């Protein structure tokens, strides 16, 4: 009779842990996907701004008047 509440408690704890782990995995997956998108965005921006030249730039030396 005394063992039943203990079993119920253990079951609740087990379910909670499983739930947390599953949620953690989902969050990790979301984070990984977000990071990958950020990495990809950074890389494309890096190519554009750092490795390529602007098509319409001027060297600024100041006006004459």
């Amino acid at each position, binding site marked *: 009779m005394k063992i039943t509440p203990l079993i119920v408690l253990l079951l609740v704890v087990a379910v909670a842990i499983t739930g947390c782990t599953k949620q953690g995995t989902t969050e990790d997956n979301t984070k*990984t996907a977000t990071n*990958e998108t950020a*990495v*990809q965005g*950074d*890389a*494309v921006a*890096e*190519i*554009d701004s*750092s*490795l*390529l*030249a*602007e*098509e319409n*730039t*001027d*060297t*600024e*030396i*100041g*006006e*004459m*008047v």
Partner: protein
Amino acid sequence: MKKATTLLLMLAVAALIAALPIVLAEDNETNDDLNISEETQQELGAMHYGIGPEIRLLELEKAITKNILHGETVIDVLKNASKNTTELESILSEMKLLKTEVQNADPEADNATTIFVDLKADAIDLSQEFRTKANELLTVAEANQLRLRLKEDEKEELKEINDEIKDSIKAFNSEQLRTVFEILGINDTSIIDKYLNSNATKADVMKVITDKFSSMTSEQKIEAVAKLKEESVKKNIFKIKAVEKAKLNHFARKETRLTERLGNLGKFNNTEVKEKMTERIQDRLHDINDKENAMLSRLQNRTNKGNDSENGNGNGRGGKE
């Protein structure tokens, strides 16, 4: 394992960049008042690759050409108002000599970045000098009216050099894009050829790159990003070195340029303008001489203080007891 190695490599490169300015700044006694703006530093970065130096020199030539055209209009307006324009004409004549120097500069020379920084600094100084003198002779209303007129005039006259710059930038970007495609493993480079022939825009090429990225695995993405960062890091190191190199012996180089310009004044027929040019250049040579002497004197004082400290005569901790 591969991911960890890539991350370590990226960290090592970042640490190297962080340490570089400190190492290069250690001996800055020979630096002087040459101010290299953030914009100029960015421009130097592109000089690291292929035809980058040629593009920068062309852009500088265009800027000087534009200012010569503007200066001529300003002088015409002032002459019509019976104002004395001798000094302005002398500045403009020097700008013409400067333009020739830019045209004759070798984009493939080892010191192309230093030449670019020097000649751009001269162009800025001469434009500023002209602007200050012109604004002394013009009313605010006249100056505003002139600014509007100059903006309308310039497009047609600069068309040829504008087109040359655009073509050079396309060629430069195509070279860069081929490297990027190689890093990303894109074998079909037809879009780059289309971009080079103006049949595709830069945005079209960037879309191909984005699509390729989307189809890559996480590991492939990280590896590609690390390689791209490496290219960017190389450019930044080049930029920092170019800035430091340009700052060294700036006075001596300026002295040489001005002396050479003095030797080229024979090209100008107007005696009055020629005399004014000689006077202005000689004034600047004296100014450089004064600055050099002041710098040498500072260095001498510092050396003497150092010697005093070593001999136990200083006022610091190692001094008198």
